[in-house]
């Protein structure tokens, strides 16, 4: 094992984004001919790592070596391609309006001249036959007419087919998300047949069984750190999960005095429902009482936001009886939250304009008074609320969104990862605000991607594939429980 040559080496690699530290002194080697599994929770740094290897991002500091050569600032997508590094990304990268063979042409422009369709068609079909026998795809099929699973098969085969330079490293990022059980197994068998050959594979997946079945080694990332490397032969689900999150209770003794005093049963048993399932029994459904903070967790994109959006449309909910109106705090404030050309005051008061009307016009004095009140209570850092919203930092913009929603009289506040990209100090202030408001009887449904935030929740629902898998009581849940239920 030790005699193996490293194809790619990462030495003390750091990557910073504006609000986060995505990779933290990461050290990692990928050996020739091995399949390396990478696992970790959302935001552990997996995607950042892939983007650095494929030349989409440049690392903030540290060294990346490919075949012993150190990569410099000029490393980009083309260079990665020339070195034989390929990736299959989570979002598909095919042109839907082109045929399979035309997509190959986009990818291999060097294969030209007379009869290119025949040659490229043969290339993709040979690879498809090798990985997915009986795939049933023709080279002339238009991609948009293929099912999602078949598109994914084409995408994978595209990455494994070569024209000129030999492939060195293929990175598969959640390759089986659109594949059914049968084709997933075919892919795993194919990867296993590659072991010991000159090509290396990085296999990233949330499905631990697949990682265990297809890899030689497994790297566990947490918060951008390499927290452990396991030989697959010696690994198990249990051990991986232990590495991914420590078995500490979410609510530690002495941490969060506010929360510890709460006892789920005696506090909320008699409180009236804000969200109540219409039909009881069957699948697990959420229920929310007055004054309760309910957390939604699980892997990102497994239906949490979808649920929030359907709750927001409270009048038409088919599954729940909801006491509305609901108000919504989005996580992507640039896209869904702020009105960028408006002042802070207008951004705060936009939900309550009906209350500010005098005759038909809006009373600007009252509008400013509301904004000034919130400026004082949650310390929005500005000298005047008449300034443009963009004069505020990201964290303060998020405070404005909280102020907007909390100014309304809605009994139900829905939050879609509301502290995304907010600094630690501001986060603590927002947490305090949420707890205060819940004491006044407002109910919160809080989708969060951060384990730490779950400690503020009275109840936690874990999502997977659009369904609720588990309901955990806030004070009993541990990070390990949450991870166990989400994988």
């Amino acid at each position, binding site marked *: 094992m030790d005699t193996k040559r490293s194809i790619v080496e990462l030495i003390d690699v750091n990557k910073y984004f504006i609000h986060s530290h995505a990779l933290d002194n990461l050290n990692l080697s990928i050996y020739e001919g091995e399949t390396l599994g990478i696992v970790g929770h959302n935001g552990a740094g997996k995607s950042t790592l892939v983007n650095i290897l494929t030349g989409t991002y440049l690392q903030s500091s540290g060294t990346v070596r490919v075949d012993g050569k150190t990569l410099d600032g000029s490393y980009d*997508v*083309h260079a990665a*391609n020339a070195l034989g590094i390929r990736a299959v990304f989570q979002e598909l*990268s*095919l*042109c*839907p*309006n*082109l045929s399979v063979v*035309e*997509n190959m*042409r*986009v*990818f291999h*422009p060097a294969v*030209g001249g007379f009869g290119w369709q025949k040659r490229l068609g043969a290339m993709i079909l040979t690879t498809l036959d090798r990985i997915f026998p009986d795939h049933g795809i023709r080279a002339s099929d*238009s991609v*948009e*007419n293929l099912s999602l699973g078949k598109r994914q098969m084409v995408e994978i085969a595209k990455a494994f087919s070569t024209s000129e330079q030999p492939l060195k490293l293929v990175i598969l990022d959640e390759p089986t998300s659109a594949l059914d059980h049968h084709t997933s197994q075919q892919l795993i068998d194919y990867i296993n047949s590659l072991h010991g050959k000159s090509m290396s594979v990085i296999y990233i997946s949330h499905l631990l069984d697949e990682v265990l079945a297809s890899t030689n080694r497994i790297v566990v990332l947490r918060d951008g750190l390499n927290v452990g490397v396991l030989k697959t032969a010696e690994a198990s689900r249990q051990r991986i999960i232990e590495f991914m999150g420590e078995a500490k209770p979410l609510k530690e003794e002495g941490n969060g005095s506010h929360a510890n005093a709460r006892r789920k049963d005696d506090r909320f048993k008699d409180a009236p429902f804000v969200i109540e399932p219409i039909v009881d029994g069957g699948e697990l459904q959420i229920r929310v009482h007055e004054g309760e903070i309910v957390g939604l967790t699980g892997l990102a*994109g497994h239906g949490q*936001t*979808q649920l929030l*959006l359907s709750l927001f449309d409270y009048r038409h909910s088919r599954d729940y009886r909801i006491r509305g109106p609901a108000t919504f705090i989005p996580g992507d404030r640039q896209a869904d939250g702020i009105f960028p050309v408006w002042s802070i005051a207008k951004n705060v008061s936009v939900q309550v304009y009906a209350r500010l009307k005098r005759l038909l016009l809006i009373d600007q004095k009252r509008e400013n008074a509301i904004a000034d009140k919130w400026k004082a209570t949650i310390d929005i850092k500005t000298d005047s609320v008449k300034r443009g919203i963009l004069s505020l930092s990201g964290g303060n913009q998020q405070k404005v969104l909280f102020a907007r929603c909390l100014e309304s009289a809605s009994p139900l506040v829905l939050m879609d990862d509301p502290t995304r990209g907010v600094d630690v100090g501001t986060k603590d202030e927002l947490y305090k605000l949420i707890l205060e408001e819940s004491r006044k009887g407002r109910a919160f449904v809080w989708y969060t991607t951060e384990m730490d935030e779950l400690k503020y929740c009275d109840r936690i629902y874990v999502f997977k594939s659009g369904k609720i898998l588990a309901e955990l009581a806030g004070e009993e849940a541990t990070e390990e429980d949450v991870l166990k239920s989400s994988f």
Partner: protein
Amino acid sequence: MNPLAAVRRGNSLQVLLLPILSMLVILVPIAVLRPLVLKYVGLQLLLNMAIPLSLATIGQMFAMAIGEIDFSMGNLVSLVTCIVGTVMSRSFGLGLALLAGIIVVYMLIGAFLNLRKLSSIVVTIGMSFVWTGLAVTIQPTPGGNVPALLQNAVSLATPLVPFPVLFLVVLAVLGHLVLFRTNFGILVRGIGGNIKAVSLAGHSIAWMEAAVFGLVGLLGILSGMALAGITTSADANVATNYTLLSVAGVMLGGGSFAGGKISAVGAVLGACTMTLVGTLLTFLQISPDWQIGAQGTILLLVLFLSGLAKSPGKARYV
């Protein structure tokens, strides 16, 4: 067979059903009203004006294939008639230099659209004023002296099949080959379908957009030359409705604003239909004052129909 269902299935021949049907809807009444149009000379007269319009439409098609649009097409075509009819007859070299300059400007526009993330609608509407301003400066009132070479070129007497028909067929086939058989065409359609995939595969989008817009400019110039040859005059406002007609032609031919969905044969058929609409309205003795409105109504109808033919959009995945 239900033509809408056929379009939905996306087979290349079936995609042409809608453009063929809409052309027949216009052509059949014309043939009934004036049976002579189906003879050699009749077809020549009927489809003469389709030559410049189909060139402009194919140009517009390339712009729309990459998800952009050229709202200055009609103004450009008018300007070219002025350059060919006035400047070229005095100084051939200067005329040629001006035409080359137009292509360079178009390529720069294409590159800037990508590099500066500009909207082609705004930029080309701005350019439309530049083109018309230039044209009015060159030729304030209609007139000029179009070279005999151009006049002869568009009125060739070809054996058996009238020249316009021959020209349209050749243009459609050439356009189809470029779009579906060349590397360039595949990348053009790829950009329209998924620009990120094309750029991830290592192609320069700025260069591609510059090349596509250079081609749009070139086709606009060819359109202007053909139009000058047919009308034998230079006129700064002769083709202002080509902007609307070329967009309508592309959509009538099964293309879409969304980009990527494109057919050269359909675009040529669409250009013919838009030409024939004018003729039919004249034969029906509808005054020219109403014709532009009638053309607009037909365009709306087409948009409505092609909207019906599209499959419903996918829900956003959250």
